[in-house]
């Protein structure tokens, strides 16, 4: 606690002033009082009288007018055998025309807006309220934080100038924001903001605060453990969401408003999209690892194309798109990994189906060109401008950014896989003329 100016006075059993230090005497005299009489400052006199009658030490905060200024004081009256002693500690003084900083209360003080979760601390910065669910979500024990110092929950960090915002705020009894901190238990980085709560005399009485998660790009975008945990963390719940939404959509649980059935279908399709993204991320994590390798097998590339086209036949039919497989009858020996090659082709043909207008045709060709076995997937979509042709092979880029769906990882992964097998994936297109994707692999015997 800060050191305050403390004034003293002694009073007899009839509450008359016996003696006082200079400061107290001055205040009492300015109010019209003098030694041998009851105190002229009514708040002082009242407390002295109550202490004498109750026969216990009592104290309270008061504001007294002293000339041009108002004094916020804490006064303490201690009754004794010979009379009562009074101690006045002057907490702060302010011009009389300035209204006291009003006490704000829980009822009146809203928490900072938009926080991910809220907390409150008392005047000693001990946690009095915390969002239990936040602990579950962000990996810390909320119950352990209760009644303990805020600093036990958060490791506070100074800003660039070495200032710790929350400490300055306590000292000056003001709101703060952008206090950078880390949740000790989970190492999650956050920023804190809070509104100050004041007692009736304007003193510090705690904070009503909010925690904001910091959106940080991790240095390593995909870590190894990510892959290992994907199944349990994402695939399981997503699978259940899709399954339940499908069940609702199918109306197995009874009659359902058609709107709700449609919502369920939307939920299922969004869930599938996310499952696809999970698959892509698992692939991404795998191919970006330094020790990533592919099998070197003898494969029939024409056969792989036929299988890929077969897998997408239903989707193409639904979209009113024809897949032209003429010229895939023969055998086209190549070297690569069967599974990965199939994955690339499903991606390419899938894209072609997605970007083709109804009634369009997709041509598939497999041919040998020198020492390479080449598959061509050509569509009648709107084509890709030359300037965009490099971009679409980048991570998180899409052929058509305005089109929903797709993770923006497919072509990036496809090209990485093709190159890992000693081949390449290129595009050849012009706006309005459709696109031709060429997958080349080393030719086989």
């Amino acid at each position, binding site marked *: *606690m800060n050191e305050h100016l403390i004034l003293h006075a002694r009073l007899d059993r009839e509450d008359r002033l016996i003696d006082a230090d200079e400061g107290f005497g001055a205040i009492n005299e300015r109010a019209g009082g003098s030694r041998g009489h009851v105190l002229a400052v009514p708040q002082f006199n009242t407390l002295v009288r109550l202490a004498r009658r109750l026969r*216990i030490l009592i104290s309270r905060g008061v504001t007294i007018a002293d000339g041009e200024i108002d004094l916020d004081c804490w006064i303490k009256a201690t009754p004794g055998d010979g009379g009562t002693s009074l101690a006045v500690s002057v907490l702060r003084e302010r011009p009389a025309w300035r209204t006291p900083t009003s006490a704000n209360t829980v*009822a009146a003080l809203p928490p900072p807006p938009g926080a991910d979760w809220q907390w409150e601390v008392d005047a000693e910065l*001990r946690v*009095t309220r915390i969002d*239990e669910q936040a602990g579950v979500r962000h990996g810390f024990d909320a119950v352990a934080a209760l009644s303990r110092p805020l600093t036990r929950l958060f490791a506070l960090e100074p800003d660039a100038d070495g200032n710790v915002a929350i400490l300055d705020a306590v000292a000056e009894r003001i709101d703060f924001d952008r206090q950078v901190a880390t949740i000790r238990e989970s190492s999650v980085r956050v920023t804190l903001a809070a509104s100050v709560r004041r007692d009736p005399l304007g003193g510090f*009485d705690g904070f009503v605060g909010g925690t904001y998660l910091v959106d940080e790009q991790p240095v390593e975008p995909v870590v190894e453990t990510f892959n290992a945990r994907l199944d349990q963390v994402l695939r399981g719940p997503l699978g259940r969401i899709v399954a339940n939404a499908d069940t609702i959509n199918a109306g197995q649980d009874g009659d359902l408003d058609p709107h709700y059935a449609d919502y369920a279908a939307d939920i299922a399709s969004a869930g599938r999209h996310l499952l696809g993204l999970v698959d892509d991320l698992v692939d991404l994590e795998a191919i970006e690892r330094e020790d990533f390798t592919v099998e070197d097998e003898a494969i029939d590339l024409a056969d792989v194309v036929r299988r890929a086209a077969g897998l997408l036949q239903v989707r193409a039919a639904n979209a009113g798109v024809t897949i032209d497989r003429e010229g895939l009858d023969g055998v086209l020996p190549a070297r690569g990994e069967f599974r990965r090659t199939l994955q690339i082709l499903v991606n390419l043909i899938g894209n072609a189906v997605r970007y083709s207008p109804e009634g369009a045709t997709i041509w598939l060709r497999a041919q040998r060109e020198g020492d390479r076995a080449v598959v061509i997937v050509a569509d009648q979509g709107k084509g890709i401008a030359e300037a965009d042709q490099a971009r679409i092979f980048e991570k998180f880029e899409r052929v058509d950014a305005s089109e929903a769906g797709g993770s923006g990882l497919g072509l990036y992964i496809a090209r990485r896989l093709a190159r890992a097998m000693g081949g390449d994936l290129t595009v050849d297109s012009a706006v309005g003329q459709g696109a031709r994707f060429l997958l080349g692999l080393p030719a086989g015997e």
Partner: protein
Amino acid sequence: MSLSPSTPESFDAALALRAAAAERRAGRRLASAIEDFFRDEHDRLDDRARALIGALVEVTVSAIERDVGDTAARLLATRGEAQAAKAIATGNASVFARLIDSGLLRERALMDEVIAQARVALIDEALVANRPPGVTTGLLVRLREHDDAMVRDAAIDYLLADSRHRAPAEERRAELPAELHHQLVWWVAAALRERLAGVSPIADRALVDAAMQRIAHFDGAAGTMVAAHRLAASIDADVERLPGLLLEALTEGRLTLFAAFLAHALGIEMDEARALALEPDGERLWIALRALGMERDVLARVGWALGEADRTRDVEALPDAIDAAAVVAPEQAGAVIAPLMLTRDFRQAVRALSMGSAA
């Protein structure tokens, strides 16, 4: 012969009806003005209490409305009553306003509970604000690190309940005992029913099912009153430690815990102990403290802390009251508060009867 709406006779009849209604309203206004004028200043709600009571009731009703309404709408949708589902989910008619209009919320037990909780909240806040600068408290900090695991667990439960209860005003609900909560759920369900243009057996069934779900999910043991009482029981303080605990609870701004220590020591119920702590003149509280053998000094300190924190008390009258109570012998005091230990239903019946004969 039938009267068309425009005949002079029907016009006169409508006018007479309106005039009669206006007269009744004027009569009611005058009655409440008279009541207001003669009301004792100390019995009057101050603005903060009024605002907090209003917020508690409204937030509590809205929470139940949202819960029961959403569930009923969902049930109706799956049962093929899309129209009714929409009416329930999107109806604009305020359930809160309807319950106020109907007079249902005037229910004595309900308002007694809400007013008590609002007053406890305001007193708690003032107790903390009145703490001398530099005074630190450590009751709960100590209890949650207690050697006895039972005390430790009870302290954590209490802190959790307290944390939940400290929600900002716009989210803070009253912690209702089971029977009051259930009653309120049925009222809300009945008010929601009025949103439906025509009532069907399916819609009624859905509302009943939604209300039953809400009731089934109610956890009466989660409130601060119950948690505080359990904490006091786990500590099981003796006569030596009790005064310190009572005063520390007040210093920390925890009137519910103060009431819990009192309830456990006296062997009375929590709501009775809280009522003692909230009584503005404190007469019965001094007697209760004397029954526990507390000295004058403790009475005075409790009286001072509560007097400073509660605007409805007259702190100038406190010294005389304490002087009078201090001379009452503990046995005598025990006999006076003995009826508090009797079965709740019996106590309430005795009270109701005496109020009836006084009127």
